[in-house]
């Protein structure tokens, strides 16, 4: 009796997760500047991956396999936060260099 319920819940979570990834990618096209695009990618993908991890957990054959999936989410989060920060810092340094160059030229 419970199995079909779990299956339906898994499919729903999986579809929701994929929708989040789709919307996050849409952010690349709709937002105009780099930093807003990073906002869309990091935050929406974090949530999308979270939903997919939740969908996979009931399928996990053992406790360790489940923990492994959760570990993937945690590591992906750390990587996405760090790379977002690095890209943002590079963009900001570029902007500052442009401003300084502009004030020297003008």
């Amino acid at each position: 009796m419970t199995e079909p319920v779990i299956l339906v819940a898994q499919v729903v979570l999986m579809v929701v997760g994929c929708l989040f990834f789709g919307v996050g990618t849409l952010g690349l096209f709709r937002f105009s500047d780099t930093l807003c695009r990073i906002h869309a990618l990091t935050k929406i993908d974090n949530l999308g991956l979270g939903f997919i991890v939740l969908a996979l957990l009931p399928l996990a054959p053992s406790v360790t396999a489940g923990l492994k999936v959760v570990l993937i989410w945690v590591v992906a989060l750390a990587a996405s936060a760090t790379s977002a920060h690095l890209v943002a810092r590079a963009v900001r340094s570029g902007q500052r260099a442009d401003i300084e160059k502009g004030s020297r030229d003008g």
Partner: protein
Amino acid sequence: MALLRAFCVRAAAFFLVWWVLTEGDSSGLGAGAVIVLIVAWFSCTLYPPSSHALRPVGMLVFTGYFILRSVIAGLDVVRRLLSPSLPLNPGYLRVKTSLPEGGPRWLLANTLSLMPGTLSVRLQGTSLELHCLDLDLPIDQDVRAAERKVAGVFGLGEAGTEESAS
């Protein structure tokens, strides 16, 4: 003594990760134990133990807060993205943090990158530059809340921030 304690805690944490990665396969545990000891020794040499010990209760509170705010952050960006008028008011904001250097500040910066409407751009000393999707949001309040949770993880006292627009 602190070094020995850090070594044991780290070795235990690494062994847990090894156990999870090998999905509990008992044939890999012996090799894992050797590798874990080497990695723990390297980690203690490269990153000597700091005075900030992790608090289990604080970590649980932080995890709950983080998951809740992640959902809000994702839905917030989705809402802005899907509304036809694209309601954004992006800009930079500089906040001061009173969290000590090292782990606590790094955790705050990375956490804020995944929180609603903020992205940490540059961390210089106590000053943290954020990029905000919407400057009308109560950013300062959110930063203070995140800072309190981070302080809880490391067992630190009340931490306050001062906001100044740049």
